[in-house]
């Protein structure tokens, strides 16, 4: 009897995905095409004849491409910095770096406004210095701000995945290249970048998929003149209720996402190599003390510049609310108006953290099994599966939410109103992060380690637990960080699936911003601040665990 642990365990994610991703998706498709079978191809024809939608497709692709390239360029120095430098406060800085990822778009938009807006800090400053009557920088509602916002959201993905991979890469390879006469640039281009390319490809695939399906950023910062495919789908589904066309667009979007991910995974396969990755901690490195000091200071400044929209937000919060700050918090923690929907921030935070942790657990299990299984398979089939498993990235949370509403509304699976369904939705969105973080590491792991363990008589599961897991643990934790972040910041499906009593922090923020008045802005900003604090603390906790878990010196 040859019962293979690794072969049967793949059923867990397969069943999970069939039930919670493919089935709801199919339900929407069926529902949208109900009753008129000859109607199936009409939406597609509309799509490819209408130059508007062709324009949307083209715009979506190229803005995502630019956003991805920019994110990688911006993130690389930080990835290097975190991978190769050790200094006090690093954990904190890393946690800060990942903050943008969880911030609701409207809050980020307010941050950008506080910084670059007509009355923002930069313009006010420039106008004062140069005595201008008009604000010199006008970024609002431009393409530039969409790209900047995408970079702001996605750079952390690249930083986290690449730096985790980079730090476990043998630095002697780079040293050797230097000694052989390579200049810094040559070493970077010929040795370092090819070596970290698995992580680079992985993270940029995520960044691309995210920019490709970006909804909030485009809606809030760009305005409707910059509609992406996702924006069109959102409008068609929720507002115009033209489901057949929306479904057709979804199919196109999924198709494109699939295509891109397929190319990526193929390339990733080619780039993967055994690197003898070690579960070692970061290395102290190579510069003399003063140069290192300058570098660290420069990088910290750089990171703070990247985070400045959030800083501007905090500044704005204190500037605007100083007159009634105490009232603000009293208003947050007790409800004078006696609203039916009032929830104490403590409950809201508990909800958010609870959903996020459950999401982390589910998506980590699903993601690690998928990554583990994908790493073992060979040939073109694996590429197909790899990209299939990434499909949720190309899926809008709104559509998924709709799918759940119409799929799970009958016994025995009437999950409407249950928070479990939300955790599942979050896990569907989050597990690709775990896969993308873990896969490059598994692929680059020295296969002889596993063989050695096998020869020593270890079972498959034992090998996984005692040999492979410790090596991939840092990568799993990176994935878990993002699963946590995805769940903490997710809004679209939360709004659709959650009962008011299960409100999360982003939903609370939106609720405040749905009404006019300064106090509401203040409360929204206060909740955003709470979100930042909770998330930073959680990331630092994960990071602490990672340090211990990954051994290191």
């Amino acid at each position, binding site marked *: 009897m040859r019962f293979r642990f690794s072969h049967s365990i793949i059923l867990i994610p397969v069943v999970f995905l069939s039930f919670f991703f493919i089935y709801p998706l199919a339900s929407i498709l069926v529902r949208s095409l109900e009753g008129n079978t000859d109607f199936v191809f009409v939406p597609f024809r509309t799509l490819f004849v209408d130059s508007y939608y062709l324009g949307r497709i083209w715009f979506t692709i190229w803005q995502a491409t630019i956003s991805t390239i920019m994110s990688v360029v911006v993130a690389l120095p930080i990835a290097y910095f975190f991978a190769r430098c050790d200094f006090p406060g690093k954990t904190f800085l890393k946690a800060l770096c990942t903050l943008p990822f969880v911030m609701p778009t409207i809050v980020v938009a*307010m941050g950008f*406004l506080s910084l670059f*807006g007509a009355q923002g800090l930069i313009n006010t400053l420039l106008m004062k210095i140069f005595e201008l009557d008009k604000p010199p920088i006008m970024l609002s509602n431009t393409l530039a701000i969409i790209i900047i916002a995408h970079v702001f959201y996605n750079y952390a993905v690249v930083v986290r995945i690449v730096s985790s991979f980079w730090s476990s890469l043998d630095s002697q390879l780079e040293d050797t290249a230097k000694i052989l006469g390579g200049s810094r640039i040559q070493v970077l281009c010929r040795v370092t970048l090819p070596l970290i390319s698995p992580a680079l490809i992985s993270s940029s695939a995520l960044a691309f998929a995210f920019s490709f399906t970006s909804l909030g950023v485009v809606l809030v910062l760009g305005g*409707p003149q910059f509609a992406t495919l996702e924006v069109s789908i959102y409008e068609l589904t929720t*507002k115009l209720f033209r489901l057949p066309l929306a479904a057709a667009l979804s199919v196109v979007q999924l198709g494109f996402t699939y295509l891109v991910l397929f190319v990526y995974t193929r390339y990733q396969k080619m780039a993967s190599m055994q690197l003898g990755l070690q579960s070692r901690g970061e290395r102290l490195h190579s510069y003399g003390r003063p140069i290192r000091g300058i570098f660290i200071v420069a990088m910290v400044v750089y990171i703070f510049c990247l985070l400045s929209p959030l800083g501007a937000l905090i500044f704005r919060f204190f500037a605007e609310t100083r007159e009634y700050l105490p009232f603000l918090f009293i208003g947050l923690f007790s409800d004078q108006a006696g*609203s*039916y929907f009032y929830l104490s921030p403590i409950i809201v935070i508990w909800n958010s953290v609870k959903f996020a942790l459950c999401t982390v657990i589910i998506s980590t299990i699903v993601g690690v099994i998928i990554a583990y299984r994908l790493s073992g398979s060979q040939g073109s089939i694996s590429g197909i599966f790899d990209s299939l498993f990434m499909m949720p990235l190309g899926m809008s949370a709104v559509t998924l939410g709709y799918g759940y509403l119409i799929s799970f509304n009958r016994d025995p699976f009437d999950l409407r109103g249950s928070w479990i369904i939300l955790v599942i939705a979050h896990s569907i969105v989050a597990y690709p992060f775990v896969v993308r973080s873990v896969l490059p590491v598994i692929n680059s792991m020295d296969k002889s380690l596993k063989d050695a363990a096998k020869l020593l008589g270890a079972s498959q599961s034992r090998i996984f637990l005692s040999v492979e897991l410790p090596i991939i643990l840092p990568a799993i934790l990176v994935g878990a960080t993002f699963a946590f972040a995805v769940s903490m910041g997710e809004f679209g499906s939360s709004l659709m699936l959650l*009962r008011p009593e299960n409100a999360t922090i982003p939903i609370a923020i939106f609720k405040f911003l749905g009404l006019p008045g300064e106090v509401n802005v203040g409360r929204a900003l206060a909740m955003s601040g709470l979100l930042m604090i909770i998330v930073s603390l959680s990331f630092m906790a994960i990071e602490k665990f990672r340090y211990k878990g990954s051994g290191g010196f």
Partner: protein
Amino acid sequence: MIKIDIFLAITLVFLITVFACEQANEDSTIIEEKDPQSLVIVVHDSFDISKSLIDKFEEENNATITIVKGGDAGEVLNRAILERGNPSADLLYGIDNTYLSKALREDLFIAYKSPLLVNVPNHLVLDKTFHVTPIDFGYVNINYDKQYLIDNALDPPVLLEELTDSKWENRMVVENPATSSPGLAFLIATISYFGEDDEYDYLDFWEDLRNNGVVVKDGWSDAYYNDFSLNGGDRPLVVSYATSPAAEVYFSEGKYTEPPTGNLIIDKATFQQIEGIGILKGTEVEKLASDFIDFALDVSFQEDIPSKMFVYPVNRRAAWPDFFQFAQVPKVHSDISHEDIDEKREDWIEAWVKVVLR
């Protein structure tokens, strides 16, 4: 290996905590219940009401109320259509006059004529078949930033045509009618104001507006909090509600005694939005649902509406709170019927999108 054990242990402890909490919640609700009837109400996101009122209704009717938020007015309706026959709720609140015809056409509701409708002015009762009962109404119009206008020596416009003048260049933000209900409301107001087939029709106006640098946002929050000059943006005119200035006073913790914003009340250029409630077909508690409609039309509920949702109560007996003195009621609002809106909405939006966005 020890680290992994710790990880598993933490996970386990966490899961136990979560389920224990859930269990505790459920236990407490079970003890309270004496076989009460359950009433589920789907509402749009802006719905809010005092908890004491809901508690009172639950107590008087031996019912438990669950209120579910389901997106904005359009989303709530779409959701009900998707769930037709097996609704997750018994009542649907938030059908406004832009969606009324569609809702009636989809045949989602059971008719109910509340005796309390006698207190509601006749012009607010749009559905004469009583499938949808009006609860509140409001107006969509243009708000302006008083301080900005003073600083830039501008007077509030008195005609919509003025907005295409160069002095208002790059000074207005509107919402996308394809995605936002105030956006659609304002579009309808401009149709009412300029007409569809006149020499200078609403599309000519919008084209001029576009050439004058109007910015379009997808939602009210984005427009109000990111582009309106009051909140750090660069535009002093925003499409909002007639009650917004009043809300600015209410939500300022005493900082303002006068609103910082003003309403542009231009005849026919404001849109009256009437929101109603309906009993969903397929409910098992029709009686309870109709009791709730009576309750919602009752004075105590109606008087709670202004300070919670910042709209006007339909019951003429309900008193308004003080700060509603800043929420002027336009005398002549748009005159497009809900049947027309339903019939032409998509054409209007599409025409608008072509002129303004593409």
